[in-house]
């Protein structure tokens, strides 16, 4: 009778002997033929990741090196790590006069946007200013969200750049971390249903149907055992009232990072985009609002250890939102 160690050795050596040594080249060729024509998924990350890379390539390959060095040195190019810009903790050029404690359930006064807002800017870096987003397709295409950005360090995400999305305006904002992937963001959403198993969201077999009201979505989220949710609180934003819920994704990396199709807790209305969690313990602070009978979700995505000043900056953007419904 073999000892445990002997048995372990036998099994290991047997598997080594049985294992093929080389993947046939034709498999890799066929794989790359497919991947070259296949878009990456991952919602905001994928789109803005490519956007960032393309601009890096342009900057380094399309301009004279001396000019690039000059631009980087003077900080006139991208204001972010990797481009010679200031670190993540750069103070806001114009901090809000009354920083908001986050997350907050209390109504926050909405600053009046400046006179000439920019409507639905393309995907990419935003300058400080006032913007108007029309994030939804029909029948909510007339709904707009006006907001103030107080620094030059946020990226807009336009719906036309999101794979499988039919949204026709800006659907959110992002902030990149040092590794070049977004770590914080804000989004506008219309939600159709929830996923029973967020790690296996494709298909509809385990979709959890939810009714059309604010309370329906709140009940669906808070009854899930897949992620943690805070107790819902009353909230008011942009002139409309609703509920606030904070959703915290699982801490186990295996439960979030390794999902083949991403960790996706909800499904958008038709034409909307699928947005997966940024990673374990990703925190979604949700304002679930009733806007003239339409349920709208405004979401901040961050982590518990996200820099406080950046979180405050993002909160100030949300606090500035004015919603206009036709």
């Amino acid at each position, binding site marked *: *009778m*073999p000892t445990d160690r002997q*048995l*372990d050795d*036998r*099994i*290991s*050596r*047997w*598997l*080594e*002997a*049985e*294992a*093929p*040594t*080389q*993947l*046939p080249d034709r*498999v*890799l060729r*066929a*794989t*790359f033929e*497919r*991947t*070259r024509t*296949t*878009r*990456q*998924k*991952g*919602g905001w*990350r*994928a789109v803005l*990741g*490519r956007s*960032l*890379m393309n601009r890096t390539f342009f900057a380094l390959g399309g301009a004279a090196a001396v000019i690039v060095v000059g631009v980087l040195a003077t900080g006139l190019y991208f204001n972010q790590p990797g481009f010679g810009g200031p670190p993540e903790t750069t103070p806001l050029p114009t901090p809000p006069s009354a920083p908001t404690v986050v997350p907050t359930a209390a109504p926050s006064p909405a600053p009046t946007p400046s006179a000439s807002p920019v409507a639905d800017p393309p995907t990419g870096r935003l300058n400080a200013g006032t913007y108007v987003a029309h994030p939804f397709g029909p029948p909510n295409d007339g709904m707009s969200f006006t907001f103030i950005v107080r620094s030059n360090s946020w990226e807009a995400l336009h719906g036309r750049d999101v794979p499988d999305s039919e949204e026709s305006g800006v659907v959110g904002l992002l902030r990149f971390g040092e*590794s*070049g*992937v977004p770590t914080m963001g804000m989004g506008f959403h219309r939600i159709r249903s929830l996923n029973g198993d967020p*790690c296996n969201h494709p298909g509809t077999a385990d979709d959890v149907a939810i009714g059309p009201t604010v309370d329906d979505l709140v009940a669906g989220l808070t009854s899930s055992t897949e992620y943690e949710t805070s107790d819902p609180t009353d909230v008011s934003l942009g002139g409309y009232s609703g509920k606030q819920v904070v959703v915290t994704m699982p801490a*186990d*990396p*295996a*439960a*979030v*990072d*390794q*999902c*083949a*199709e*991403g*960790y996706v807790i909800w499904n958008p209305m038709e034409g909307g985009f699928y947005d*997966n969690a*940024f*990673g*374990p313990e990703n925190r979604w602070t949700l304002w679930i609002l009733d806007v003239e009978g339409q349920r709208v979700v405004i979401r901040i995505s961050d982590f518990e250890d996200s820099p406080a000043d950046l979180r405050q900056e993002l909160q100030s953007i949300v606090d500035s939102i004015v919603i206009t419904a036709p």
Partner: protein
Amino acid sequence: MRRDLVEAAARGDHEAFEVLATSAGDRLYAVARLILRSSDLAEDAVQEALVRAWQQLPSLRDPDRFDAWLHRLVVNACADQGRQLRRWSQQVRPLPLDASISDDTGAVADREQLERGFGRLKPEQRAVVVLHYYSGFSAAEIARILGIPEGTARSRLHYATEAMRAALQADARQPMVAHNGTM
């Protein structure tokens, strides 16, 4: 360097992805073929896993977990291959013995018995055996890779190992045949 490649691939750099996939391909193929016991199915599983890796790379927050994540994708792709055939556990047959192969275990009979014991395992147990004894992952790492509790990984590994021990101890040896429908 590898982390840089993963981050570049996650941002859509296909050349970086090709480097990563090429370097991981042989290992993934070995894992898939050991689990599936079929070269054709294993090739399909690896291709599917790599395509999914390309699609989902932007969702991978920690580039250092790329290798573990790839293993999960290939194990899942092995399961999908079986499901597509609707007969995951019935289509998989032991590889034919090649008497010309010699190894330190000494006897063809030994291999035959290991083969038989392995072939009787459920696919999920086979995956745990391959990840542990071939890829060298611990039970805790296997649990993270497969997204299962560590206790479940340990239990599968224990059962599988004991099943193979039992096969080695079997008194009677049976002729090696393809086991369609008998696993």
